């Protein structure tokens, strides 16, 4: 029997409501994704206005491209540094803020405020602070330490980019951890205490398992975010010194918009997509081993 007029009207309303987001996703997510794969099979020079099908040539080229290998290496270093420092610091801050101490609100605001600051503005301010004669080295010299020329030495530049990014986003992770910590039942802590567990033991065996879903969420967000880093690199180092901070997205940008190699850049975009997908699937699959319960 055909649906009644009322049901049909309900369906129409439903479809109308989801239509904008479905159409938007199709136009701005799915279509570009498909197009990038299509472009990656072509050699496309916008200046010469040539668009030639080359099959898998761009993918073969990736294998032999030393620049891409350098970019992948830089990306791995950046991601490891960012994830380790960011999550450790966010967790530490959250644990500290979870104590009922005076001034926690101020402290929380202090660490959260960079999250709402414009990324580029934040980075530009840091670029001044990190200059050879900038604020950071001025502060260090007061302590009698001679700071490096942060953005001009390879190791220091990578560390600087990581730290700028950590302070930008650590507040968000801190809040997520704090919310999770506040959801840990006090009676479990108390029971552990009565059983004679010390502070570290309680943290490791009670708190950490209970907040493990949040640890998973935060680590996925942070890893994915670390693979997307672009503006900080562009403003702070331009990929240098040498190619020490040329991460994958920045390399992609150079290929496309500096060298006009849109086909090759699209192939790199596909590679990045696969990397993100694989990492996320791995984390998602491994959750059963270490995440206490689903969110």
């Amino acid at each position, binding site marked *: 029997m055909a649906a009644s007029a009322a049901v049909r009207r309900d369906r129409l309303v439903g479809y109308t409501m989801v239509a904008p987001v479905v159409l938007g996703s199709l136009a701005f997510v799915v279509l570009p994704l498909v197009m990038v794969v299509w472009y990656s099979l072509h050699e496309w020079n916008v*200046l010469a206005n040539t668009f030639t099908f080359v099959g898998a040539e761009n993918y073969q080229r990736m294998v032999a491209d030393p620049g891409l290998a350098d970019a992948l290496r830089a990306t791995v270093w950046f991601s490891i540094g960012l994830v380790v420092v960011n999550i450790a610091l966010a967790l530490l801050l959250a644990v500290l803020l979870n104590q009922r101490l005076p001034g926690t609100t101020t402290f929380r605001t202090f660490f959260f405020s960079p999250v709402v600051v414009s990324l580029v503005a934040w980075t530009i301010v840091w670029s001044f602070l990190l200059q*050879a004669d900038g604020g950071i080295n001025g502060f260090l010299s007061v302590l009698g330490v001679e700071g490096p020329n942060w953005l001009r030495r390879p190791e220091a530049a990578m560390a600087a980019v990581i730290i700028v990014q950590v302070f930008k986003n650590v507040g968000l992770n801190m809040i997520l951890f704090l919310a999770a910590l506040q959801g840990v039942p006090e009676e479990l802590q108390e029971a552990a205490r009565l059983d004679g567990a010390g502070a570290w033991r309680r943290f490791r065996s009670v708190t950490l398992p209970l907040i493990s879903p949040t640890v998973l969420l935060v680590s996925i967000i942070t890893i994915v975010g670390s693979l997307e880093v672009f503006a900080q690199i562009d403003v702070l180092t331009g990929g240098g010194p040498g190619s020490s901070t040329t991460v994958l997205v920045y390399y992609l940008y150079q290929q496309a918009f500096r060298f006009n190699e849109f086909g090759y850049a699209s192939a790199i975009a596909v590679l990045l997509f696969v990397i993100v997908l694989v990492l996320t699937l791995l*984390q998602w699959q491994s959750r059963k081993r270490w995440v206490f319960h689903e969110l």
Partner: protein
Amino acid sequence: MSAHPTRARRTAAAVGALGTALALTSCAGGSSAPAGEPETPDQPVELRMTVWTADEAQLGLFQDIADAYVAENPELVSGVSFETIPFEDYTTALTTQLAGGNAPDLAWVFESNAPEFVASGALVDLRPVLEGTDGYAADDLVPSALSLWEDGDGLYAYPFSTSPFAVFVNTDQISAAGQPDPADLVADGEWTFDAARDIAAATAEDSGKQGLVVRDFDYQSWENLATVWSGWQAQPWSADGTECTFTDPAMVDALTWFHDAVFTDGALPGPGTTADFFAGDAAMTITQISRASSLDDSFAWDVVPLPAGPAGQQDVVGQAGIGVFAAGDHPDVAADFLAYFTDPENAAQLAAYFPPPRASLLNGEDLAAANPRLSAEQLESVVVDAVEDAVTKPAHASFAKLSETVRAELDALWVEDADVEAVLADTCAAITPLLED
């Protein structure tokens, strides 16, 4: 459902964003109709020219010339707009517009991109239009100024600005430090890079500011060092662009001199230190003469030619061309406008900011009339003498890749304990495959 996989897809989408703009308007093919006498379009057209200046006086002058053209040719054009794209991202933004099928009708083009743009077929041949326009006096154009923009018999852009590099001097700071006046050294034939370094180092020491700034170099845009190494007759690659010459003795000597001037003598600001001569932060700066418009009267200043190096004094010009895009909607109308924009009368007006490639206008008096900040003598010595025998900054058909590769290699040079020869050997090793391509 949990948010996590959605996040992954969203990320993938962000990656795919490279294609977003491209997807909608990709591969808009350009007809490379030769520029000729424009056919009258059905309706008057709008022309758009991309530029990298944001100077209101300059844009005002462009608009005045354009409005006069519109008034004379109402059947061809209804308006001409000038779109400013910031200098740093200019070429990137321009090629992105091309990729999006949104080519401007006319565009300024950097000299370093000239071979790439000329060879690509993206620009139309302007010679028939310029030579065929009454009163244009195409034979007045200085041949040496055009060579960068030619391919065979074709001329693919008009070098509207042939602006020599010179040294601007803050004479207040230099005399306060008790240093000799560079203009006197020029007169005595003693204006050398060594003299400039010594004056810069002593003045910086005295003022607590910076000495000599190679403007726009910033330890990134290394091609601006051509203003220095040309004094050693050094070049980054051979004239035919196939062989790396960074390891030639002249280049090694020039960059050793530069490195020591920065790290031993403190004559130039080191990496990561910014100093704006025009804000009074430095004693001297090497930049184009067209920057004179940035000077106010907050300090006493002078302008002198580039110093001599061991191989003698070599003038360097920075050029910029205006090209007409084949992929634009109305290349023939755009070319006709360009012929008007740069005819003898308008070129004389533009000379206020951009030294023109016209022999008849290249004299101290005419330039001084258009350029009140500089005296006829200054212009004679710095501009007129320079244009005829000057070299341009490095250019190459693969300049974008070369520029980035050399920048990455030279980063190793900008530290105190650098091994200049080793860094330059690495540089040649890195760019040789690109040059041979």
